[in-house]
């Protein structure tokens, strides 16, 4: 507490904001592709496999992301406990390989909300970029 008292008021406010919102802890930030993948999963009602996510991103944004990048991101999000996955049985159309289906966890929904709030706060006061004319 003594140490905190020595910190100037702006830094203190910033620090409490970070602790309160838990948005800036190391490894907790969402990268751009992580946000995109999470939002695509939300569009898929919270559940889908890699190719479905890739297709959703392509249809909504017009950007083609490689399947490897999508799965690498899904894997990273699962490590962060923002997603969970289960294996579906293999099929002939998949060359006898299993399907890995990811679904979004409550922590994932919170993380994307925090990211959007953060972005919104940063956008405020930038009239050229905000939606206001």
């Amino acid at each position, binding site marked *: 507490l003594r140490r905190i008292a020595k910190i100037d008021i702006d830094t203190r406010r910033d620090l409490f904001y970070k602790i309160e919102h838990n948005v800036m802890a190391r490894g907790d930030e969402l990268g751009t592709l992580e946000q995109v993948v999470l939002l695509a999963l939300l569009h898929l009602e919270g559940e889908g496999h*890699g190719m479905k996510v890739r297709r959703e991103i392509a249809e909504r944004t017009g950007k083609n992301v*490689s*399947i*490897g*990048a999508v799965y*690498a991101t899904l894997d990273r999000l699962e490590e962060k406990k923002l997603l969970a996955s289960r294996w579906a049985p293999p099929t002939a159309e998949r*060359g006898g390989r299993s*399907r890995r289906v990811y679904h979004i966890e409550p922590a994932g929904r919170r993380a994307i909300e925090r990211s959007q709030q953060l972005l919104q706060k940063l956008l405020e006061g930038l009239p050229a970029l905000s939606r206001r004319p």
Partner: protein
Amino acid sequence: VRSVAPPRGPEWLLETFLPESLRDAVLGDLHEEFVLHVRPSRGPWRAWCWYVGQVLDSLVPALALWVGRGYAWRILRAVGFGLGVGAGSVAALQWVGDFSRRNVPLRAGLTPDTAYLLLTLALGGLAVAVAVGSVVERRAAAAIQVLLSALLAPLAVTLVLDVSPATFPLWYRLAWMLVAPAAATLGGGISVARRRAGPSLSDE
């Protein structure tokens, strides 16, 4: 179904570099997309290009996954080991070459330069085999490693014996006869130990 299957070569390449925990998911998705959507709508040639493009675009994220999961040290170790064996072989051969030029008459038909070149290649190949086996988790890689070792280790031993065996010091012949099999055994040992330990990248 066989005629519309994805190209085997690119599939093998991606399979080699993907962590085991994602292999079925990624390759299954690509297979399904290729067979059900891409090939019927784009035709065989453009579908082939699409598949190869997906594989090439996916290689970097696949490699990044290895590094992100603490495999960087393992890759470095393998590269270091390969370089160490290679550089050590070259340095030792240079020393032995100088020694033999000064002191040892060689058999007819085999110049020192040719013998040292072949020896270096053989030992370098063994080092590569060991490095490959240390990093890549695939049966095919282990097979390549065994094949390289089986081809190169006898070559190295034979060359050592052929370079004037009667006049070379015994310690020298024994040392070089041990280097190649030792490298091959170590490489094989790493592969076997890893396989017994199970798929370390699996998060199941």
